[in-house]
């Protein structure tokens, strides 16, 4: 089962930085275990471009499609047996402390 892990900022992060786990260890461990298929950080949404086509015409907007306080700053694609395993992976990511993580299952036919 594949899960998209959206890595987001949060307005109320963990204040005790000593609790935050190391991100490189997280990547290494989950790559080795085959639970992390790919992933990366993203540049801030100020550099985003929103693309639409209406009536055959290309419409471009400078910036993200929605302005929010919390923004997506990275993603990982996980391969896990079930949601409990995906939660275990997500809870050990540094941004589960410094921000928040949204787990979204891939659509299955």
């Amino acid at each position: 089962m594949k899960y998209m892990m959206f890595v987001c900022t949060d307005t109320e992060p963990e204040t005790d930085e000593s609790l935050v786990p190391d991100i490189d260890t997280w990547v290494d461990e989950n790559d080795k275990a085959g639970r992390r298929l790919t992933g990366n950080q993203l540049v801030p949404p100020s550099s985003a471009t929103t693309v639409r086509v209406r009536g055959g015409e290309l419409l471009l907007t400078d910036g993200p499609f929605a302005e929010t306080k919390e923004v997506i700053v990275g993603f990982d694609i996980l391969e896990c047996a079930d949601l409990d395993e995906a939660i275990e992976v997500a809870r050990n990511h540094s941004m589960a402390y410094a921000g928040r993580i949204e787990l979204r299952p891939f659509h299955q036919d």
Partner: protein
Amino acid sequence: MGTPVDVVVAAASRESHTRIVATLIRVTGDWDLAEDCAQEALALALERWPAEGVPNNPGGWLMTVARNRAIDALRRANLERRKLSELASLPLDPPAPAHDDRLRLIFTCCHPALSLEARVALTLRTVAGMPAADIARAFLVTESTMTRRLTRAKDKIAQARIPYRVPSGPALNERLPSVFAVLYLLFSRGYDADGEPAFADEAIRLTRLLAQLMSDSEVDGLLALFLLQHSRRAARRDADGNLLTLAEQDRARWDLDAITEALRILPSTDGPYALQASIAACHVAEKTDWTRIAALYDRLATVVPSPVVLLNRAVAYGYAQSPATGLAMLESARVGGGLDGYPLALAAEADMTARAGDRWRAVSLYEQAAAVAPSPAEQRALLRRATELSRN
């Protein structure tokens, strides 16, 4: 004349429903199919048993019918062989407790990735077998809203792949509060002054099932707490429906069986529910030992330092030592504003103020408490105390 067949069917169904649904969900992974098959087995029993007589093993009979219905449905849907052969070889006797499907069902319905309202609805519908219309009525939403809520919860379980499993190791302790929250909300819904008592009964039944299926002192503590509170249900109101305090209640109307069961299972551990149950046990004793209650609240306050626990601790000290001690502790419990507008804090202050001798201030406090009380029954009880005080 023997017991009417519909009564036998109702009893067998209550006993078997959870087991049938829980097992069929594990094997087929299909929640709706499991519920439909359990329902059809029940309908067939109502049709056949009056003419053919009640079978020796009603639960086994219901399980066989439900399983065969599931096999038929899966054949029609052309499902893979593995599920079909597993269904065909299902043992009809209850499986060993370590692998009880009912426990898997409870933990899945109460998974913290589901909202609390979804967990409550799903537990009532699937574990307790309550019709969606009844659940909707109790939670003041329309039946279609409740049906949507149930469908959404089942869709999430399937789409996000919430496992059908009892968590093990440290995960079990992390997941139990999510189950307790559901049981506690259900119980409160039945115990509230204007609530529906059937929900308290259902919460007790579910907690008792959980206590049978797993060994955990907090589960036992929660069950004991529910039993002790519920033991007074027949004595909580007078003939006119007014709420009575513990001291005013007729003890002969307390449910002794419930109290006996609670005292037998009461754990002596330091978990929040075990401690609350120990406190509730002090309140049903012949003579209330306020010094022991105060000591138990000290222990509870170290585990759960919530404003309400600190308030109750102040009340206990108000009796164990003096109203002045209690009032001083109430003042410090109020720091932070957690008790602002909380009617029980005002009622407690009123009671201690009256016992400290300031009658008129106490009357005014009771009136303030009544103004913010959540139900008419509680409002009447508080105003009655204000009236009694001003007459003395």
